[in-house]
């Protein structure tokens, strides 16, 4: 895990300032989406070795949810973006 995270709002900050919520790659299904879609969204988690997208909450900083793109094996961090931007990008 990275020791330092570059928050797009606060700059380089130690990882202890963040709480990790988990997988950020799944979008919340539409209200009427099939059972399988909701089941997967709520219960099924991949545990990938390699590149992942995770929600990191900057609880001791700007209180923004960030999407951290990182490698679980090498610990390299590729990108950190605000979760709202990430969600809009996914929709757009």
């Amino acid at each position, binding site marked *: 895990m*990275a*020791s330092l995270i570059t928050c797009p709002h606060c700059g380089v900050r*130690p990882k202890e300032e963040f709480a990790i919520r988990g997988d950020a790659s799944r979008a919340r*299904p539409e209200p009427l989406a099939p059972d399988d879609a909701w089941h997967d969204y*709520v219960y099924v988690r991949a545990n990938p070795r390699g590149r992942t997208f995770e929600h990191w909450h900057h609880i001791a900083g700007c*209180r923004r*949810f960030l999407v951290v793109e990182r490698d679980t094996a090498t*610990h390299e961090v590729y990108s950190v973006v605000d979760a709202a931007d990430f*969600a809009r990008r996914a929709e757009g």
Partner: protein
Amino acid sequence: MTGYRLSSGGLVDRSKSLSFTFDGRPLRGLAGDTLASALLANDQLLVGRSFKYHRPRGIVSAGPSEPNALVTIGTGPRSDANTKATVAELYGGLTARSQNRWPSLGFDIGAVNGALSPFLGAGFYYKTFMWPKQFWERVYEPFIRRAAGLGRAVLERDPETYEKSWAHCDLLVVGAGPAGLMAALTAARAGLRVIVADEDFRLGGSLLSTSETIDGAPASILADRVVAELQALGNVTLLSRTTVFGWYDDNVFGAVERVQKHVAEPSLKIASERVWRIVAKRALLATGAEERPLVFGGNDRPGVMMAGAMTTYAERYGVAAGKQVAIFTSGSAGYRTAHALAAKGISVAAIVDARAEAADQAPDGVRVIRSASIVDTKGRQRLRGIVVERSGFEELIACDALGMHGGWSPVVHLACQRGARPAWSEELKAFVAPDVGGGLRVIGAANGVYTLSGCFNDGAEKAAAIAADLGFSASRGASPAIDGETAPSFTALWYVPGAKSKAFVDFQNDVHAKDLGLALREGFGHVEHAKRYTTSGMATDQGKLSNINAVGILAGMRGVSPADVGTTTFRPFYTPVSFGALAGTARDEHATPARKSPLHGWAMKNGATFVEAGLWHRSAWFPRAGEKTWRDSVDREVLNVRANVGLCDVSTLGKIEVFGPDAAEFLNRLYCNPVLKLPVGKARYGLMLREDGFVFDDGTVSRLADEHFFLTTTTAMAGAVMAHMEYCAQALWPDLDVRFVSSTDQWAQLAIAGPKARAVLQHLVDEDISEGALPFLSARKVVLKTGVSARLFRISFSGELAFELAVPAGYGEAVADQIMEAGRPHDICAYGVEALNVLRLEKGLLTHAEFDGRVTPDDAGLGRMLSMQKTDFIGKRLSSRYGLTAADRMQLVGLKPVDADKDMRAGAHLLKEGTKPSTLNDQGWVSSAGFSPVLGHSIALAFLKSGRERYGEKVIVFDKLRDQEILAEVCDPVFVDPQNEKLKA
């Protein structure tokens, strides 16, 4: 061995004599000594007992790899167990005690284990202590625990203080030996921000202990000169007594600085130890190389030590390890030690060289025995002689100290702590650092460069390259000239055959060569398996001396190269770090701060007993004279609220202000019940679900203006609800125009409940607060007669006519005082969370005792709140799953005991009459229970299978913890005023 102080020489201050004690014996050393050098100077050879066999052990090394000389330094709460004497700086008044011996170091009962050793081989505890089964806990484990172990932790409170600090630099140099100092100097002169960290109390590394000279002067002179120049530069931080223990992601290093572990009376104003987190753009590892011990029969006799350590004791501390010293070597460094000792006038008995041929020259008159090995040592608690074997001929040579040298291993721990494994170098016969990228480079002996000039060049070159890489221009100064330098060489010798007694691989854990053979025979030949099976390398020294020989021996036994065996995994910490240092300032109130309500002072004045709820200190009840138990107080408070009026501090509830054009829409998606059309000036009970359909939290939603809502959450979930809302607003629905902020600490919130609540409150406000003007579930801003802006809510958690008044936190205590004053004629009382809990229990109102994460709104009898007409809300979709709507789910019910004298307790399980307690027969559980002073008996809320259909049925309340079974009747969960007549009075 007879250790003594040489008449001159060394970097100790002979004018500063220091007194200290070892096992109560008063001794003297010199400023600049380590505890180990001072003990040697006093001929205190026996310093400890080994872990398993309790064998007498002496000092082996002169540094952090020491396996034997572990002592407890200090007394009482300041005792530091398992401190290595070889790195402990001597100070006046130091007290040291040996460990793992009883009754004394010289006579240790546990040494009988040595005679039992045939039964105590590797993995003995897996085999020997198996039967009978019940003996393990009662006999074997206590016995093993008493017999094994090192220093003891003290139970007294640690009076010392600790702290943590961040540091940032362009270049971190780990190790201040020849390579590190030259690298630091090169980088510092180029203008880089440099941090140099070294575990020693004096910077210089091997320059302080080598017998080599530079430009005709002792090497330590050069070290002092470089350190002085670095000290004078503003861009350099020198951290001595600082061990870099870990290398973490993003080139962050962990280090511990022993700020005042070397003083008799540490100041409480500064920390004893400081943990550094160093963010380094680049780092150079200049940690040197570890000398390898030789594995031969009797190699653990006190008096046998590393040849390099002997040189260090002689050169740096002016201490001779013995009067008649022998050397056992497989490399040229053994000869260098012989020269160094001879030059100090110490007699060298013989050099036993395992190699058949070598170009190395012995000092004049010293006998060299080639192609020879040592198969045994003589003496008991100190070395008297060695048995040298050559071609089957054994010869006893008298000596009182033996220096051993088996080659060098670069110290590459830090470079391997992030997953990369060291690589075997056939050329160096050693594991070397892997290529871990530009952030961390290895220099000097850690890089397999074993000459002084090579170290200087390697350090300077790599530092210059880093400087250039970071945009600085570095120029290299002239390298110092080393006098008569030769490159050392050695032959790897993992194991000396023909041992006549135990040949130890790992001294601290008593692992000898045969144990590794046993591990291999029994299928544990993989290096990681062998480590665990034999415990080789698992002691506090983590096998700094022993691991390489264990790998070599396994390789030999398996008939493969050490490259194929590989090493075990390197992890932080390089050397042990105290828990105090790791905790830093995070202890007591700094670890768990007390959260106090703005009404804490008011509660204190009224005699409250407090209870800790998370970090909060909440007023639990307010005892009065004559009340003997807490129940007396709580019963009185409850009855008074039901009959008159009470005031309760509810400031700890989470409070969140929500603003924006989309505030109503946002909240409508958060709560399972409708919020969109909540009128301004009204409050509503709200239920939030998790996405899986279970209840997350409950509270109230009030609309103070069209685009301004005010929420309350439970005390426990305040933080979680805030984070949940942030997630929903930012990650799920970023296009909703809504903003919110926690105002938990900004408001003092007071609940005024009871039939006389309105009468009391009317004293404080001019506005009409009658039932007609301010009906149940009103929420509005008011101004108190005193001019204080406030918010007034008609909400009730007791079933009584009740108000919640919120005032700015700073006014809380004054307003509470005012209410108590106004309420005196109405017999007002203060009530705490215990009475609050009984009041809500009597009314069947719910808390997180009920909402435990397994409960749906319908389970709790709140199914009608689910607004399935809404397009969407968190938890809607999964609420309709079959499992969450099944008819036999556990449903909220009330319970009253058939025999009114019986007390039910939360946590009890429910059984049908006539059934035995079993998981299969389980019918539900009691979530909350208490004594109702109104009804005069115990009442409980419980979850019971299909409970709402079973009112009137009798069930067994089975409480195994308290070993009781109570018969109770299932009833409606609202025990008092089921028609809610008092609420709207």
